[in-house]
């Protein structure tokens, strides 16, 4: 009889939202791994019913204070699909610009304040700043640029107020965007330097045979539209998403997971998936950088997701600069539409991965059904699968060390647990499981 021991991380740190980790070991064998979520459910999909569809982007933004734009973008595209609205090229570009702001803010935050501390064994970005003041201050400045772009275009950085079904409430003035350019030109160089820095971090030698999933678009690095592609070679229309990917219950777990409908296999969404699938469509400087750093693409090491974030940071700066330079204020700022009973879905790329929304609306313009699949619920099964493989490599230490190493792996996914629509409170099953 081998010794059974359990390791619990009561509260994951440097992640957004609150969750824990539960591991049970039977000798050297990993008996059970659970990412436990105790974020209380807030029932967005229930109380959206009966609301005017125009309220949906403002309300769904409140699912997540870190990636509100992802919720707003997915919501408006899904509702426009239902209403048969085609947005103008100007609106489309401005939406990409808004998403660039969120990618810059979120990636700079995660890279510098949440993830990089792991590679130097310090507790926080603030602690890291005493050893790497230039790098951390540079990161904070990049993060600020993202927020400033969100403020000009969205009205404010957290829960922007300018996103409307059909477009924007108001198109920004050219001068207001142009004022950002000097900072963004500096930021592009700084983002390149940052990416070079993180590419030299000491990464564990840990690669996995992932099925990575991301949007793919023929003409651009996909953000707001495209097919749902995968590194295993599948490519399906967003309308078919629910036929290929589904949420399901796992026995002995109370957390909803996502998996392939065929066998519930896990899959991986996020910046590493996007870079692996769409690397050729990066803007020029990001592309040159990707080819020049010491990583063989496609990359299957989750710890190197920090480099993928860096490349997307560079891309977001390049694209933002290009859109701002070409921008001309336009009118009308939103496309008009008429209410009709219908349904529509959309997927977009949140900083931490693919996000899917589907709505049904009635002819009075009221929501009758809402389904929201956030990126972290899709990654949850993959994170647990990764931990099963990662654990045997970190068992030569005390429980604190093992817990710390597990947290490191979880953080690679930049999990956003506040996106709690599909998470359940975990009740630990301490009984022996098959």
């Amino acid at each position: 009889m081998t010794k059974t021991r359990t390791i619990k991380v009561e509260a994951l740190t440097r992640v957004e939202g609150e969750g824990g980790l539960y591991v049970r070991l039977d000798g050297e064998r990993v008996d059970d791994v659970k990412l436990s979520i105790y974020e209380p459910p807030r029932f967005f999909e229930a109380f959206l019913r009966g609301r005017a569809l125009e309220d949906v982007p403002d309300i769904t933004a409140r699912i997540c204070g870190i990636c509100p734009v992802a919720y707003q973008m997915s919501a408006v595209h899904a509702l426009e699909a239902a209403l048969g609205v085609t947005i103008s090229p100007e609106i489309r570009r401005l939406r990409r610009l808004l998403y660039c702001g969120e990618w810059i803010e979120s990636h700079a935050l995660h890279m510098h304040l949440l993830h990089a501390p792991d590679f130097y064994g310090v507790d926080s970005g603030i602690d890291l700043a005493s050893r790497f003041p230039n790098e951390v201050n540079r990161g904070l400045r990049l993060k600020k640029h993202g927020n400033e772009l969100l403020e000009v275009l969205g009205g404010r950085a957290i829960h922007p107020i300018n996103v409307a079904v059909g477009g924007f409430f108001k198109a920004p003035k050219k001068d207001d965007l142009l004022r950002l350019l000097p900072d963004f030109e500096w930021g592009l160089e700084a983002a390149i330097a940052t990416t070079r820095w993180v590419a030299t971090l000491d990464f564990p030698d840990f690669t996995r045979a992932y099925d990575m999933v991301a949007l793919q678009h023929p003409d651009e690095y996909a953000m707001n539209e495209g097919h749902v592609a995968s590194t295993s070679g599948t490519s399906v229309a967003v309308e078919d998403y629910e036929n290929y990917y589904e949420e399901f219950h796992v026995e002995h777990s109370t957390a909803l997971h996502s998996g392939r409908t065929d066998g519930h296999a896990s899959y991986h969404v996020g910046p590493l998936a996007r870079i692996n699938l769409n690397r050729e469509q990066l803007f020029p400087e990001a592309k040159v950088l990707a080819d020049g750093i010491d990583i063989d693409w496609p990359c299957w090491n989750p710890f190197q997701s920090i480099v993928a974030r860096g490349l997307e940071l560079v891309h977001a700066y390049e694209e933002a600069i290009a859109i701002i330079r070409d921008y001309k204020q336009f009118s009308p700022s939103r496309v008009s539409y008429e209410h009709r009973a219908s349904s529509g879905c959309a997927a977009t790329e949140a900083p931490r991965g693919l996000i899917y929304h589907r709505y049904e609306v009635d002819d009075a313009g009221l929501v009758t059904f809402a389904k929201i699949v956030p990126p972290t619920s899709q990654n949850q099964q993959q994170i647990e699968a990764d931990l099963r493989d990662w654990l045997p490599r970190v068992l030569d230490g005390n429980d604190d060390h093992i817990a710390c190493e597990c947290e490191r792996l979880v953080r690679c996914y930049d999990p956003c647990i506040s996106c709690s629509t599909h998470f359940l409170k975990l009740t630990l099953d301490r009984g022996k499981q098959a």
Partner: protein
Amino acid sequence: MSTRARHEQTQSSTRPKLAVVKFASCDGCQLSLLDCEDDLLAVAGVVDIAYFLEATSRIVPGPYDVALVEGSITTAHDAQRIQDIRQQSKFLITIGACATAGGIQSLKNWADHEEFMRVVYAHPEFISTLATSTPIADHVEVDFELRGCPINRHQLVEVIAALVAGRKPRTRTHSVCLDCKRRGTVCVEVAQGIPCLGPITQTGCGAICPAYDRGCYGCFGPAAQPNCNSLTDHYESTGSTREQLVPLLRNFNAAAPEFQAASDRLEVNSGTEAQS
């Protein structure tokens, strides 16, 4: 069973010990602290960030000089946890609409909670939540409330600076309406007939919505002495329906007493079923 223990003993420090604590919320208000990019390292220099899960793995046990509390109370466990936090904290400050008014999730206060659980979860029996979402002040004494969905990070810095200096924080309580006049924003209600909560909503956002050609939807909650009924009566007389006005009042501060009374009055008078 081993528990990961990263707890450090309190170091002798003259800096106030700060805890940032989360309940049901989106994380946006505590993110506002990290969004103080220019001031972040300065703030970290004047306060001892003793508990802030989103930002640091360092966890120092209480008591704390200041607790910033984000989120509303929606579970029995959290109702107990806020009692513990209150006991450990000298000053308890709520940050944001969830903590001060119950947040958007308070819409379930008007709904059939069992039905809500069945709609979202295949196995409602696994869910352990209360039928209501309530503000922190319904459970413990609160020393200061910072409004907003999200909070204004400049107000947050003011609160921290005030506490470090040992004075009372100063935030204004006039209405958004006044800020539009100061900004020179043409009134969206007068000029375009858009129902706007600016006259009854507290300042703090900078009056951004009317500046972007849309009506205020009440992120900072009721202003001091708001006349909600007079405003909604006016909107009804100029063509807005109760089916529009009730959800407008039932956004991120739906359960703030003044907004709740105003939306309930419209609903009772029109005899409509509880929506949402």
